[in-house]
């Protein structure tokens, strides 16, 4: 649909308002860079007052499902201010499901874990990273000394990047166990 539509749209170009072109062109998917640059010109400064001056557009990938949709993240002063669609992404062509378009909420969410936590007598307590790493490793090394490395089950993630996943496998191997898995098994 994308390219036929652009052709359709460009036939009608004439003096039929910038607005219409922009909408049709982008909505029906810029099939390729070349097609889109013909019909969608960038808006000039008079037309647009950038709502987020100085922001940069970071290309990234949705972290939900395996389709692999593109995301444009607008970042201003280190803050992700707006999630935009990647109309020219070859797999998603700008489309998202509700989960995908809400990815910005993962960094905006107030329910994130903000600091290391430890449960003491049934109450969650804030601790420092140093304390967390020290205590956990101490306990694990003690158990390893007692029963050997197979005392732990490492559950990795399908949300890891390829490199993290590769390193997690290596992590388990160097700890000395094959007790490692992730949700490929569900």
């Amino acid at each position: 649909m994308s390219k036929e539509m652009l052709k359709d749209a460009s036939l009608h170009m004439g003096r039929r308002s910038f607005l219409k072109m922009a909408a049709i062109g982008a909505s029906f998917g810029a099939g390729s860079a070349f097609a889109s640059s013909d019909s969608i010109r960038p808006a000039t400064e008079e037309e647009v007052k950038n709502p987020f001056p100085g922001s940069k557009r970071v290309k990234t990938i949705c972290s939900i499902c395996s389709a692999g949709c593109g995301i444009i993240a607008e970042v201003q002063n280190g803050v992700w201010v707006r999630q935009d669609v990647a109309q020219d992404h070859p797999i998603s062509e700008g489309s998202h499901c509700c989960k995908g378009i809400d990815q910005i909420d993962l960094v905006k969410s107030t329910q994130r874990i903000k600091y290391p936590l430890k449960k003491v007598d049934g109450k969650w307590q804030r601790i420092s990273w140093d304390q967390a790493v020290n205590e956990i490793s101490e306990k694990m090394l003690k158990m390893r000394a007692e029963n050997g490395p197979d005392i732990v089950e490492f559950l990795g993630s399908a949300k890891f990047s390829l490199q993290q996943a590769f390193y997690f496998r290596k992590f388990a191997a160097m700890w000395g166990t094959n007790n490692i898995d992730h949700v490929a098994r569900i």
Partner: protein
Amino acid sequence: MTQQFGDAVNAKVIMMIGANSAVANPIGFKHFLQAKDRNGTKLIVVDPIYTRSAAKADLYLRIRSGTDIAFVYGMLHIIFKNGWEDKEFIETRSYAMDQIRAEAAKWTPELTSDVTGIPVDQIIQATTLFAKNTPSAIAWSLGITQHSVGSSNTRILPILQIALGNMGKKGGGLYIIRGHDNVQGATDMGNLADTLSGYYGLDDNAWKYFATSWGVDYEWLKGRFFEKKWMNEKGYSLAKWYQGVLQEEKTYSSAPIRAVWIQGTGITSMSQQAKIKEALDKVDLVVIAEPFVNEAAVLTSRKDNIYILPVGTQFESEGTVTATNRSAQWRSKVVEPLYESKSDEEVMFAFAKKFGFYDQFVQGMKMDVKDGKVVQVKNDFKWPDDAVREIARTIKSIGLSGWTPERLRSHQENWHMFDPVTLEGKGPMKGQYYGLPWPCWDDKHPGSPILYRRDVPVAEGGMGFRNRFGLEHNGVSQLADKSVTVAGSKIEGGYPQLTKENIEKVLGITLTEAEKAQMGGSWAMDFSGLIQQKAREAGVCVYGNAKARTIVWEFPDPVPLHREPIHSPRWDLVQKFPTYDDQPKNFRVETKFKSEQQKQDWSKEFPIMLVSMRVVNLSGAGMLERTSKYLSAITPEMFANIHPDLALKHGIRDRDMMWIHAPHGTKIKVKAYHNHSVTADRICLPYNFAGVFQGADLSANYPEGTKPYAIGESSNTITNYGFDVITQISEFNAGLCRVEKA
């Protein structure tokens, strides 16, 4: 998947079985809808429930869950009877189809209908449509895999495609739709108990190969394990690790599990929640590293020795992800890790230091291949680029050698230069496919958007079937027929996979001594890349050109057989199609099959089939989505879809609360939604909720301010006992229950 989504437009028919991508994977489903609109592609949906995908189908078949093998044999029966199979394809590119044919002969439409619950005329109609309009494609997902016969399910569908000659073609193939964004990649990277990265397995050769690539001493690595024996043994799997703690079923390991380390796995997306809770309560240490509270922390009632470490989301780290079509995509870091979060790799680095193997851990990133040898080339490393290079030089088995950071970055920067239908690049990206779908044999290879195409040269993404299972079986050659020549290949017909030993003979070349010295033992373990280089010159695929085997002689069922689910509603069929014998040991633990299935007629007390479903606003354990107010608002509470007739029989009105009881004494309390997508013999429920366990609200267990907007019972509390005989995947999609008004 063997194809990529854009290719759906070339299919004349797409059959979705055990997949509801309209809900689980809407962007994938868009391509199917586009195919309908652009090419008049017909869509067949086979599913126990009338899903959103089914609503868009031209033909919908309501199958009884757990009877997919029977259904496909029913199709094959009709195909063979009418001679609709691709005889040439079967003859030249497959092995042992006659055994399949023999089994299919038993599955008359009448028997198939009795077992699957699909009317005879619909079976015939679907088969006719699918078989007579090739190329036709199959899409499947977890509805196929999550069964005690899951591994047979995943074999019977490719067999159907081989019988119809639908493999290795535009418009044909298999759309195996993965779940999470990088479940393909994390699997490829071997976050698995039964293999190292790249499916190299756990044998000594694999360990030695990885030790070399990681830049560590094999002996040191071996010393890290309890005994060498445990290095080669599969570990506990995600499905039954808790038995390593509880030891209720017989286990075989060097030690009981005393600690569980959860880094990005939604614990409530696994079956046997009650057992998992017990295990979490019993272990000595629980470590959780997540951006949001993992329900493991909530499910357990333990009072201490549980830690939660804040980890950034994937937008707070950089790396690549593999989409379901095997394309790698570069995911840029959007923001620095928020609050006190660290990225996943930083967490690993921090603990590697404490555990005393940090230097060995990161050594691989400082190494590179020089003259066929992996040697240290620098003293520091850059994440993730050096890890990307490490993966590229190591994982040859699935052809990741071409995935260099430079190429993947340029694909991201220029993603607008790729065609959405074919993924072909244009302009500066000409001659490459988007994301270099693996196998991407070397840094000049364009990637392989469609697997097993022999009409394009290997250098452009073509290949035959892999020669993986020997040169012959029962005296029959496993190599492809003389007539099956991959375009541009120097070798006519089939050839074996390349090794240092056979390369001269197979390719008809002579190696120099220097080359011999550098070359690894086989194509998959050849750091030098010489085997690939020679293969490229000859237009040959390193992994050979073989026949696809339709029987797996190492498996309990060499020919896939229909076997009733562990808890089946058809006691009569349980006698006729019993499940496997009990399995003494798989992933270090015993698993019950027949003894559980035949113990009693479960369907007497638990007459209702239990089917899992997806909701579009939640994924996995719902950990990420339920913290979004907009997404939670769509399904603010846990529910089960139940047919009004069934509900009213139990006095349950629309939106009433009801108890669902499972055969093993567990129960959940959920809201009943009267819905016609299910018939009166089954209920379906989403599995993405957590925070309530058997009627008890666990809100108090969330650390302050982290409770999601929506909580509810996890359906996996009542997922029935049952595991696949090979992969040990839980039988999420077939089980029994009874309902009761709450």
